[in-house]
């Protein structure tokens, strides 16, 4: 399943895109520990699969929580992307 967590508002599109099929193949889920803001969590979804998700508390403010990882105008790889070998997590901005 492709899960888009985040939102679109007057200031733009801000989505964290998780490919849960890939996460299911990834036992370690290193992204959770790599995230400095504690944005990510492992949960059991409605189909009883163990997947990665954006914590509820961050879903309406990912633009802010994930902002510092990619300062304006700089080309850097976000920590969560860096540790993910399967390409299971992306950001829309």
């Amino acid at each position: 399943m492709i899960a888009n967590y985040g939102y679109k508002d007057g200031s733009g599109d801000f989505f964290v895109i998780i490919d849960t099929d890939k996460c299911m193949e990834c036992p370690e889920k290193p992204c959770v520990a790599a995230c400095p803001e504690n944005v990510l969590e492992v949960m059991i979804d409605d189909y009883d699969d163990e997947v990665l998700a954006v914590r509820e508390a961050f879903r309406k403010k990912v633009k802010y929580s994930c902002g510092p990882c990619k300062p304006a105008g700089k080309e850097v790889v976000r920590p969560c992307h860096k540790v993910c070998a399967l390409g299971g997590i992306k950001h829309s901005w």
Partner: protein
Amino acid sequence: MAEKPKEYWRWDEYNWRNPDIDWRKAKIITAGVDVGSVSSQAVIMADGELYAFANMRTGSDSPNSAINAMNWALEGTGMALSDINFTVGTGYGRVNVPFANKAVTEIACHARGANYMYGSTVRTVLDMGGQDCKAIRIDEKGKVVSFLMNDKCAAGTGRGMEVFANLLAVPIVEVGEMSLQVEEEPAPVSSTCVVFAKTEATGLLRDGWPKEKVLAAYCSAMAHRVISLLERNGVEKDFAITGGIGKNVGVVSRIEKELGLTALKPRYDTQIAGALGGALFAKALVEKGTKK
């Protein structure tokens, strides 16, 4: 005392029952309760067939809203809460449904509900609720393939439409029809943000625009916006629209036109999709032998 201001956002609350079904003959009775931020629905199914439902406005506390909706769906059926084998709670207040046996997210419930309501060919579901907007792609079994939910911003939600209904003093149920009474489609309102769109609309009214033209401009802005969300999530035939705004022809027809796809006609009130999915989840859980 002054007259109470009219509440233009109000739609009718009601309940429904299928007279052709005798629930006493059914083996499995399940229910789904969807406590949304604006409306709550309770659906009762007998052996996986829709038997009864109620649709009402959510009150200030979730548990009561769930109980009220359920009692209303049960009304006149002769059924008691204890006759129901399994109940799934869903929606924003899903963990606050006191009599639910399990909570399931609204995304999964909507997907399954849409599969029942529209048939197994439906692949893309757009749910426009009171305070959120969801785009869901599903497979032939009603399982979620991808989803996107926007509940941060009021633009593109029922709430945004209510703001306009109030501003223009047009009852919410008439907004859609009215917006189609324009000879020529005006340019959409340019601000996405409801707050700024409202300011913009005030200016248009001052410029002498008739209400229907302002509504047309807003409905098409709303259509644009939800289409951008849909496209981010992927669009595939068949396509269906659920939720309160699914009843607004002004928005629906504009979405259809821009997407070049006709939305499937629902068999039931589109607002019950979530609760319906909940009842179907409940049935699957009973069959799997999940204990209460």
